[in-house]
């Protein structure tokens, strides 16, 4: 047996009966594979999303979705120690931070589920309602309602002092009926 040791401890074992050119070829092939394996990024749980979202015609936002700016008027008023600071406004999406005495305690958002239709699924088995709209708790920090079967209104805690019942209370403060009329 011939043992060849490469830098980094890679060992290939070959039978002495192989002709020289075949040994060279086998080792070269091994090195190419090794180099390729070392330069490629390790597989990630997000590879599929990366591949799908960069395929031809992929889009995260559809043109039929509402302009983010059209959502602003339905957000609740702040006041009594709270401040509302708008943070993102993109097609089909608007988001504001809710601060209490300058500290961020929650995020409030309205999104058009035309851009992410699977978001509606979680409401199908919902037995709870807030202000008459189907509601779900999602994960540890979010409560969401579905308005007009299309617009998702969500409040997310950003501080432990802001509880699930605070989220419910703030969700009910949105102009939900106004939003349900938005076409």
């Amino acid at each position, binding site marked *: 047996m011939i043992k060849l040791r490469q830098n980094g401890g890679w060992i290939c074992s070959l039978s002495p009966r192989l002709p020289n050119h075949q040994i060279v070829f086998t080792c070269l092939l091994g090195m190419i594979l090794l180099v390729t394996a070392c330069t490629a*990024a390790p597989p*990630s749980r*997000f590879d599929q999303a990366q591949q799908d979202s960069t395929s031809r015609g992929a889009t995260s936002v559809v043109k039929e979705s509402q302009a983010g700016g059209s959502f602003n008027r339905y957000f609740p008023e702040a006041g009594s120690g709270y401040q509302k600071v708008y*943070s993102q406004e993109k097609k089909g999406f608007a988001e504001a931070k809710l601060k209490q005495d300058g500290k961020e305690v929650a995020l409030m*958002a309205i999104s058009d589920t035309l851009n992410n239709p699977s978001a509606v699924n979680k409401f199908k088995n919902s037995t709870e309602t807030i202000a008459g709209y189907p509601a779900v708790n999602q*994960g540890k*920090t979010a409560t969401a309602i579905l308005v007009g079967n299309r617009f998702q209104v969500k409040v997310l805690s950003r501080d432990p002092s802001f509880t699930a019942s605070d989220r419910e209370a703030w969700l009910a403060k949105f102009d939900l009926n106004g939003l349900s009329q938005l076409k």
Partner: protein
Amino acid sequence: MSKPIFELVDNLPTNNMTVMMLKSLDFVIPGQWNNLVGFENTIREVTAETDQEMIQQIGDRAIWLYNDKSQGYQKAMWLYQTVDSADSALGTAALANKVGNKIPLVGGLLTKVTPNPDKAQALDLCIKLVVELVAFCQINGIPGDSIGDFVTSLADYSGESLMRMAALICVDGLIPLGPDFILKAQSTLNNTSPKELGSNSTFKQVQELIPGNNTNSQLSFIGESFDSVKGWMSNFVEDRNLTPNAIFGKFQGFLEFSENKLDYVAAFLDMTTNYYEHTGTQTLARRLIERAVAEI
């Protein structure tokens, strides 16, 4: 094709020149910046979610949003990457020369570094500021020339975004230009012709995304932006009693340099760090994840 956002966040360094420099600036905004790296880590930190299915959904949606060019996130990333002109080889060489915990700024390292003339440095400061404004507008979805909205939101800057501004003021303002860096920058802008701006290397790299139809109107936009932000910058400096000496003192925690080489410190850091790209990647990841978790 640009790199996937999750790779960019996963590959953020945990200990290089940029990170050492930013850590040394902690005294400016104590506790505001921790070097958050890794895409999944960022999801957990931003959303406090631990459920694997939720993390997957949030990450997937964030990736879709980033890869949709119409959403502006990639333009912002390009701006943050392009305005930094770090020479990574020099950074690596500097780290290799470390003695104990410090990099001695002597000999071979210095021969590769040339301090910028004041005028070029002042223009760099102004252009970087405008890059922040334009990137902010791209990320937040407001028109690209919304100077007023940007100035209002500076009051709300925190975490890595505030660290980026702190580093801009310290490393591209106070250190190379001195305590009156705001006046110097303004007078430089007033004495710069569109032609001179057009030949500035930093400007040339990002010119296509600076609002304005030609170099003349871009120069006006840069001037107007600087004028609107100078009050915020001067308050930032005054509130914290920031001086070049105080900053040099903190830099001595990781760099070793003599009094007569102060000029070289700014140039060396300029060449070996990419703090706009580093913290800009962190800002983008945060905004994408905040939107993704609200949309899923």
